[in-house]
């Protein structure tokens, strides 16, 4: 029997607003499969986003959903998690939302190691606003604000998250949906701040400008830029130029989680008050 995605979807909101060939659908399906595998009660999940194409995802999902301001999803999510540390808080966003305007919140959520899962649909572009370059647009690629090619060096989001202290970091392309689902599931189950980067596609705003308008061709292009962790370990740095490493990159259960540490403060302070 085919997998039933409807359980976690507000079916009355479908069809969605994403363009034909967009990669977000694969990420959404991976997220739903992960929820199903974990058997999380929909009432116990807060699904939060900022602004952008990817950030429209919570509107389609049947749970406690929050579509916030541009870049601020993690800050809203931090408030929710502190209000109810026992509940599941999952954040989804695009590369621009999560790493440009929201970059500060990303590094500080990682530093705190708060038990929130962040899934980034990295399609290398600002889709909703018309194809402007983002912090992950690769060198020389064309964007509506990079007509001569991307001039700034791009972020490696996974390395950024690891450097800031995220205790679970994984990356996979949308060409490998099953692996993506597995990492999302593991990240959600992980106690601490987890980041899963889904290397994704935007055929309309990114592909069209870069002779990659065919969604399948673009998916192959993304897939071919990913190098599995074990293979990458044997490669020279110049061979890895322009590529990104995929797989489970960090899984650290040794660092304390923020809300658990704060609970100890509460226990201590309340005892003192007695």
């Amino acid at each position, binding site marked *: 029997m085919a997998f039933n995605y409807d359980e976690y979807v*507000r079916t009355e*909101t479908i069809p969605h607003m994403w363009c034909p060939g967009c990669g977000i659908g694969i990420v959404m399906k991976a997220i739903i499969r992960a929820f199903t595998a974990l058997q999380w009660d*929909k*009432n*116990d999940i*807060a699904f*939060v986003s900022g602004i952008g194409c990817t950030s429209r995802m*919570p*509107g389609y999902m*049947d*749970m*406690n*959903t*929050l*579509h*916030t*301001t541009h870049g*601020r999803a993690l*800050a*809203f*999510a*931090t*408030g*929710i*998690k*502190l*209000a*109810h540390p026992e*509940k599941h808080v999952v954040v989804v966003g695009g590369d621009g939302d999560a790493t440009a305007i929201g970059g*500060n*919140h990303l590094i*500080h959520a990682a530093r705190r190691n708060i038990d929130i899962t962040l899934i980034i649909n990295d399609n290398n572009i600002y889709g909703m606003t018309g194809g402007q370059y983002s912090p992950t647009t690769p060198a020389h690629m064309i964007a509506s604000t990079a007509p001569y090619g991307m001039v700034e060096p791009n972020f490696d989001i996974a390395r950024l998250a690891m450097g800031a202290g995220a205790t679970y970091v994984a990356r996979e392309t949308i060409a490998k949906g099953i692996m993506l689902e597995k990492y999302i599931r593991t990240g959600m189950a992980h106690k601490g701040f987890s980041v899963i980067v889904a290397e994704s596609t935007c055929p309309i705003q990114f592909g069209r400008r870069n002779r990659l308008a065919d969604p399948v061709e673009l998916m192959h292009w993304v897939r071919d830029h990913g190098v599995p962790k074990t293979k990458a370990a044997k490669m020279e740095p110049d061979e890895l130029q322009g590529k990104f490493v995929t797989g489970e990159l960090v899984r650290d259960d040794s660092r304390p989680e923020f809300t658990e540490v*704060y609970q100890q*403060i*509460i226990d*201590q*302070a*309340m005892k*003192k*008050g007695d």
Partner: protein
Amino acid sequence: MKLYSGNEMVAEAAIAAGCRFFAGYPITPSSEIAERMSKLLPEVGGRFIQMEDELASMAAIIGGSLAGRKSMTATSGPGFSLKQENLGFATIAEVPCVIVNVMRGGPSTGLPTAPSQSDVMQARWGTHGDHPIIALTPSYMREIFDETVRAFNLAEKYRTPVILLLDEVIAHLHEGVALPDPDEIEIVDRKKPTVPPEEYEPFADTEDHVPPMANFFEGYRYHVTGLSHNQKGLPTTDFEVVHAIQVRRQKKIDEHLEDILKWEEIDMDDAEIAVLAYGSIGRSATDAVRELRNEGLKVGLFRPLTIWPFPEQRVAEIAKQVKTIIVPEMNLGQIVLEVERIAKSDARVIGINQVGGVMIRPREIVSRVKEVA
């Protein structure tokens, strides 16, 4: 009787009002509020967090409130500016929360440690778009306590952010104050839905225009967005739906002015000159009016505790009664414009405006009143 600063008083009152979550970012002259909350909250099982910036602090309290905790943040001028986008989110998504702004001189970094009252218009219109807002301006220590509690109650009752506007003078002034017995404090909680989840419309119109609010994790699973939305909470650009909800949000404040507005009047009955002042300058004005009365001048005081919505109707009545309204403010003329607009040609409106970071003293008001009497 215990000695408190205005900032400490806000923290004590917030805890008494049921605040259980605070997110903030340090900024003078408001920082003692965050410092005190970081101490008090864990003692009552609440949580404090110092966020990475002002925007995050505002965002976090909205998240905390949606998840069911009464939430507050505190800041000063430049920080208040940074919070404005998310303050707008709280108005459109109708999320109760309290924002304290201990006003300092601006614009920009301005006068970090000196008082001003120059954010009253920012409080009204700082975020973009049309939206109602409630802002309170206490003058005395016990009033700071009462108005902080009232800020939480109004936020809960009307599903709206409420701004507590203090100035540096009262924030850092220490006064002995007797606090009410905890049992005497009236606490209002948000109205909860009574319908089954599948029938719940978090943004529906109701008789009082305030829809019941389910918290996250209570089984209602609704959508909250800063986009214009329908009664279910889902994004829409349908003209009629967007218009109706915008108007409904305005109505929930406009139709409850009697409940929201609060002011103090002294010697207004036979007054020919009125002094209208708020915050720390309300204290100067009180002294000035008493002194002038002792000298036989027919002067009265109107001191708004709710500055937004502005007590328009009462001020219009006063304008018909008196010849002159004097508005002393630590800004170059903000509320005086509101008074002029309302008074029309019924009364002469004169501002006393001072922005150097020094408060307006009673004698400056006394001498101005004598000049125009």
